[in-house]
């Protein structure tokens, strides 16, 4: 009988031991990267000093001095600080990215389903749409939509006389409508609105529980819509319409006051949505086609209506395939919104990494802040989508 020491192999020499070798490699890599980073930091510091470039974040408090075309949610004037410029850019980026993702999802789904339609014409048109918009550079599409939005619209002076009070107008300065200003008492409408949301949530919990127990369904969706939209409206009417719509006023050149949706936003949004939807449509198509035929056949055999078959059997399974690539499309859309520079939409890249960088020359700080924002947005989006993905993931037994 052999003793234990003979059973274990002799310890390999240092270089033959994968574990030890792994440690050496990693130490080397860390050393090299550390040295590279150190060299970059040192060079940057030396260069900035020798070129007399300022450093530090002190510039954020100094006054910007330039105007920005659209500053939603943030109060901004020329005397505001560069940090306010940063906030304006951030808000504008988030708005266009969020609205863009939502619309691209809807349009992409519609076209993805149209791509599989039994209607020949619709199917061909969906294919044409996808192949056309996927294969043309986005920058070109943005430039195209900008002029396509601007060209056919009339100027404000062709529509309105000076001194007119205008409640709604579409012209080449954008979509302008009267500004809603809440009067005392309007806050109750908000309370009702939030109350209705909570109530709908509770209702859906109750309906699920009841369906589990008795099998009876409850029309949660219609009830929820009714609650969320009609209840605040009733409250609004009951309170005597506590909201004033302050119209825009036509000055000598343009409309003043009111709420303006600038054409740059519309053009950028159109381009981003149309471009991204082409990709999403293909993802949706692939997702739906990935659902096994047996599933559809089984649903049909059970007598499930075609519309229910899609909603209850196909889409939930397709979602598992769709969500991961969908996430990267959302990320792409967010990043692509930086192309706003080309058409003067004041997003983060345009006003902060563009104008502010140019006025202050503090490239390192500004780029660091800008990149941090985009990375954070990416992390947040993929975090959310991962959470959603894990929720809908197949629960395996």
């Amino acid at each position, binding site marked *: 009988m052999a003793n234990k020491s003979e059973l274990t192999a002799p310890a390999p020499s240092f270089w033959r031991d994968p574990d030890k070798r792994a440690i050496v490699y990693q130490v080397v890599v*860390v050393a090299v990267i550390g040295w590279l980073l150190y060299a970059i930091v040192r060079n940057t510091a030396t260069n900035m000093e020798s070129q007399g470039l300022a450093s530090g974040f002190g510039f954020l408090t100094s006054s910007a001095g330039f105007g920005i075309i659209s500053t939603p949610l943030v109060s901004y004037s020329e005397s505001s600080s560069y940090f306010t410029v940063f906030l304006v850019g951030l808000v504008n980026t988030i708005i266009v990215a969020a609205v863009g993702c939502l619309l691209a999802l809807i349009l992409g789904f519609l076209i993805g389903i149209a791509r599989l339609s039994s*209607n020949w014409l*619709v199917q061909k048109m969906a294919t044409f749409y996808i192949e056309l918009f*996927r294969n043309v550079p986005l920058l070109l599409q943005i430039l195209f939509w900008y*002029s396509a939005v601007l060209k056919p619209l009339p100027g404000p002076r062709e529509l309105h006389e000076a001194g007119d009070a205008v409640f709604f107008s579409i012209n080449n300065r954008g979509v302008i409508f009267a500004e809603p200003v809440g009067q005392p008492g309007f806050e109750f409408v908000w309370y009702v609105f939030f109350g209705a949301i909570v109530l709908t949530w509770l209702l859906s919990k109750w309906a699920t529980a009841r369906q589990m127990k008795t099998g009876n369904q409850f029309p949660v969706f219609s009830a929820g819509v009714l609650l969320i939209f009609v209840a605040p409206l009733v409250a609004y009417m009951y309170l005597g319409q506590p909201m004033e719509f302050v119209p825009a006023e036509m000055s000598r050149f343009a409309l003043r006051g009111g709420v303006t949706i600038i054409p740059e936003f519309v053009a950028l949004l159109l381009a981003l949505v149309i471009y991204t939807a082409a990709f999403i449509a293909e993802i949706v198509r692939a997702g739906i086609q990935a659902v096994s035929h047996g599933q559809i056949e089984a649903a049909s055999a059970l007598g499930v209506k075609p519309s229910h078959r899609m909603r209850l059997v196909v889409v939930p399974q397709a979602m598992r395939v769709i969500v991961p690539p969908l996430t990267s499309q959302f990320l792409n859309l967010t990043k692509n919104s930086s192309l706003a520079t080309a058409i003067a939409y004041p997003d983060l*890249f345009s006003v902060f990494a563009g104008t502010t*960088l140019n006025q202050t020359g503090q490239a390192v700080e500004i780029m660091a802040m800008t990149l941090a924002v985009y990375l954070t947005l*990416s992390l947040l989006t993929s975090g959310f989508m991962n959470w959603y993905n894990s929720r809908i993931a197949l629960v395996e037994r």
Partner: protein
Amino acid sequence: MTTITKLPNGGKVYAGDLPDKPAPIRTDGLVAWMRDNLFNGVFNSILSLSALALVLYVLPPVLGWLIFNANWVGGADACRVNPDGACWPFVSARWEQFLYGFYEKSERWRIDILLWMLAIGIVLMVWEKTPGRHLIAMFMLFVYPVLAFFMMYGIVAVNVYWIAVPLLLLGVLFATLAGGFFRVIGFLLMLGGVAMLWQVGSGAVQAIHPLGDRALPIVDTPQWGGFTLTLVIALSGIVASLPLGVLLALGRRSKMPIISLLSTVFIEFWRGIPLVAVLFMATIMFPLFLPAGVTFDQLLRAVIGVALFASAYMAEVVRGGLQAINKGQYEGAMALGLPYSKMMRLVVLPQALKVVIPGIVNTFIGLFKDTTLVLIIALFDLLGIVQASIADPNWSIQSVPYTGYAFVGISFWICCYSMARYSRYIEGKLHTGHKR
């Protein structure tokens, strides 16, 4: 004549010919096809009609502008007379600039040769019956880029540095990656590189003139432009990003925690930021990162940025391929006692890379379209040069900008669409799955 007799129990007895049944609905012909595919049901009929209306609304004006009402001959004056159609004479007057940029006129034959080589190379690689496809692919991937660089940039005198360093690199690559005979060659190459560096160091040789009197004059990169520049950026980006992407994908899946972490951070960093920011950093920040006085060509900086950006996407594509490889393949290779490098090189990567060819092509399409962004850092790619041409006061006609953009759009569309078709063809070929 038919007579029907009713029986007391409710049955019927027919005598004579039965009445003719209505003719079956036609299942062929245009009408039947339209009924089956366009008007099967109220909803579909409405859909079809509105779709048709949309087509009829959009198509005629677009085609009219592009083709039927367009100006095909004449010069700027002809376009000025008829402003309601595209101004194609603008493109034909400038197409050389669109293709070559500001490249020296007497030297444009160099680009012609390269473009033909590229076209033939691609055709040979795509056509499956080409003998020695493998070798051609290797040539296009490794030799062609180097050749293209020297042809485009020109060779007068070559600093020995520029021979020694690539030699050294190639040697290292061979010595580490290849085995047997090639490893020996790798060591020889390394030796040669070191020897050359030694020569430079001792001051014996500084530069050699490989072509003698027939030297190709230098054409500097600010003169490169147009479609050529688009190709340069996209191709060098993809060629550089492929090996880097493979390394990063392997790194990300590595069992060494630090290497895996670093690869992941690198990949997610580049995937999380917009390409505009990358190009911007390449132009503004890169000079700050280098020691004082060291300068880098602007185009080179942009290409480095594009390549790093693309390598992160490439890494994810390759990682998908690595994950798609059956675990048994890894285990089999390990059971045979293959070390990691051989396992990857001989067993896993050949299979994984084949699976991800469609992914690589798609990444390339994305990159190709994204090259238009370099106009933001004042490089004249196809879109940039068209924009610059539009600014010419001699062509200040309303239809000219649209014509220029339409030309760019159509050019890109043709390239990207054919690549996408190829990628889908490969996908279909690889996918011998169970689809219905």
